């Protein structure tokens, strides 16, 4: 007869909060697993009343949204926390921010809306600094890429080598200039499978136009959320609106 956990089942989830956080500075080198581990420990130090899963090895109920890759900074990472007790989102966010190391910073914290977080996010806005790349060179490469219908790149994933298209995911791609020797790739991409990451876009620019940055690029995710008609993305922590701008969905008490 297998053992079962003794005692009462874990307390139910009474509230969910969504946290927008930034991954800045040297902490951009954290992998998703590093971020998750650091978050879990900070939640304990901050005394956040997390709800736990049932079973022999209960885990705090944390739902992550697709994470910025190791090495990429971000101003817009999202996570949803299931709570066993009610807490004011603002106070929770402040306590969590104080417990997190500098560089993992809470930007906003809100009660979860009814629409699942994953449904509120289908695109990312990237700002990729390219030191050593002349804006004119980048602009030319972007033009070539945008003129194509399909640009395949290859990446080694855990399932082996995988070839996929980058072009169709690109909604918007603009070359900006920090100065004559530092270009910036300002781009909005749809979340596809596999996700098109900054290094995939750079590989694509290399494939179509031979663009090769002399030093490692510095990608920064400025935002992610639902893709709007004007090519921008909506912050998923803002209340849901329909196409006519009316509030939809229910904000949990």
């Amino acid at each position, binding site marked *: 007869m297998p053992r079962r956990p003794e005692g009462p089942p874990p307390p139910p989830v009474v509230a969910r909060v969504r946290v927008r956080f930034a991954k800045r500075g*040297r902490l951009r080198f954290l992998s998703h697993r590093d971020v998750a581990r650091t978050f879990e420990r900070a939640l304990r130090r901050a005394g956040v*009343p997390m709800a736990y899963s049932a079973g022999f090895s209960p885990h705090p109920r944390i739902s992550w949204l697709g994470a910025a890759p190791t090495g990429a900074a971000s101003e817009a990472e999202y996570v949803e926390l299931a709570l066993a007790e009610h807490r004011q989102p603002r106070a929770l966010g402040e306590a969590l921010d104080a417990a997190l190391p500098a560089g993992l910073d809470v930007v906003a914290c809100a009660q979860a809306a009814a629409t699942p977080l994953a449904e509120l996010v289908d695109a990312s806005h990237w700002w990729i600094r390219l030191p050593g790349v002349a804006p004119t060179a980048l602009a030319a490469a972007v033009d070539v890429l945008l003129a194509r219908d399909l640009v395949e790149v290859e990446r080694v994933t855990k399932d082996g080598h995988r070839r996929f298209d980058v072009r169709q995911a690109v909604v918007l791609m603009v070359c900006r200039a920090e100065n004559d020797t530092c270009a910036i790739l300002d781009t909005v991409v749809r979340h596809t499978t596999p996700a098109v990451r900054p290094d995939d876009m750079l590989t694509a620019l290399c494939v179509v136009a031979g663009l090769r940055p002399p030093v490692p690029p510095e990608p920064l995710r400025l935002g992610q959320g639902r893709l709007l008609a004007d090519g921008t993305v909506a912050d998923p922590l803002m209340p849901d609106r329909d196409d006519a701008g009316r509030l939809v969905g229910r904000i949990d008490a």
Partner: protein
Amino acid sequence: MSGQSLFPRLEPLLPRVRKPVRYLGGEGNSQVKPWADALVRWCLMYPDAYEVGLPNQGVQILYEILNEQPDVLAERTYSVWSDLEELLREHGIPQFTVDAHRAVGDFDLLGVSFSTELGYTNLLTALDLAGIPLHAADRDERHPVVIAGGHAAFNPEPVAAFVDAVVLGDGEQAVLEITDVVRAFKTAGRPGGRAQLLLRLARRGLVYVPSCYDVDYRPDGRIRAVTPNRPGVPARPAKHTVSNLDAWPYPKAPLVPLAETVHERMSVEIFRGCTRGCRFCQAGMITRPVRERSIDTVGEMVARGLAASGFTEVGLLSLSSADHSEIGEMAKGLADRYEGTHTSLSLPSTRVDAFNVTLANEFSRNGRRSGLTFAPEGGSERLRRVINKMVSEEDLVRTVSTAYAQGWRQVKLYFMCGLPTETDEDVLAIAGLAREVIRAGRRASGHRDIRCTVSIGGFVPKAHTPFQWAAQASHEVTDARLRLLRDAIRGDREVGRAIGFRYHDGRPGVIEGLLARGDRRVGAVIERVWRDGGRFDGWSEHFSFERWEKACAAELEPLGVSLDWFTTRERDEREVLPWDHLDSGLDRDWLWSDWQEALRGAELDDCRWTPCYDCGVCPAMGTQTQIGPTGRTLLPLVSTGPGRTGGPGAPDGPGAPDGPGAPDGLGNPGGPGASDSAGRTADAAAS
């Protein structure tokens, strides 16, 4: 300018290396102090990859103790992986600390902790990257003083040329005393320079300075004598022993890494030392006597550490944790305190004893009962008498039956291969034991889904143990016996599929043996291996036996000695061993007689429960066994207010126990040194 951050130069390289998080620092509870405010600056190194080195307790303890001093600064450095080593060389960036990314060469002292001899080549990489000459003799006033410590440093002779000094034993007080000497030296304007500083440290008995001793050899290659070459240095530098562990409750705030490490938990050392007397165990021999932390201090360290770290698991560390005189009360008290807080407790080292199953049950009240680990070490009863691991087959079967009956599904058994006097039959007896374990498990649990893993390591004779004279088994012998055992287990139709078999090839153990019992002549081998590209010898993907063999042939054979001479050769009683001039407190005559007892298969009881057997440590070091019970219990922790619910417990609440260093904590009725606990604590308080 010294003390500047190298991070701006390092940062562009990080996207190009594996796991850049290894080099970021920024761990919870790490510290960065202003360079200019510190008079004495220590860099502490664990010479392995970050994920292995970060959890090391020794480094964490010293880091915190040193940083508590207002005019002292301590930072940490670890071995950089080979990809970054290459980039650092290409870009001319030196070995750096992870705290403030300062150049290691800028510090006053570089303290290196050696848990294993296989880190020696990594020391050379770090020295070279730091711009510190590999040989102590080539260093001058610009270079840090390089000090080795840790268990492997009890025979530092193979690295004698590379280190300036060696600390033997417990580091807590020793680092502060060394700091005092360095502070005075710097304040006085460095009179006499580096040589004078080292001499001062040596004369105070704080460290062993290899350059103050000459080694003479006989024509046959054996050592004739090791003699001091300066007046006033001790003939036999002695180890340091911290009395009253309650006065040193470190780490108080454990480092919380951002990266994944090999131990994803917080550790609390519940006692130091072990007198079980396992004859192969260097740790048990060199850390005597047993000194317990009291239940109150352990309770407080767990509470403070959890609150400061957010860890979800606490390991109660020691060489044999179930031997703590209050372990039952401690287990129950902690399990009660943290019930419902999603905090798990573990006891990393357990003996074959049904009581340990009870403890493990307590620690897994609401957790999964996956695996229990026991270490009979030897397959046959005869061999277990030789090594003084007093476990009978009946004990083992009874213990595992209890475990399986109470819901544990898997038992892991640790053994060694290549022990003195071992025969093929002794090793094959492991298969018989495993068979009995599976049968007992099936009977006790009533089903067939029972697993047992047999894990085997090669035995390496170590300095300061009764086996220091023994011939190490060659890797051919070890590998042949392990093949026999594997075939015996796999060929067992009844239980073979239920037994997992894990072992490593015997060759790294031979090199570990060379480094563990080598003398100063082995230093040239280490250097040659390193120059030939040897790095991370503890990692199978880096280790090259051929490289070591080649270097031994080149460096040792012209001197009339060899790899075999250092490893598979048995020593006689009169031979001067390379570490005989280092005082671990153990009486050499006792070690020899215990070696003879081993060969006769005679067992020896633990001195905590039977009369003293004169190993020599207590009288030589002026120390005493310090054990409880105190009779105290752990009270429930009281929550300090909102926001704490479900958290790991509040350390500062009104229910928190007395602070560390409770003066009456360690009575020792009936045991050796029963009468003097008051005197001992007074000593510790005065120091």
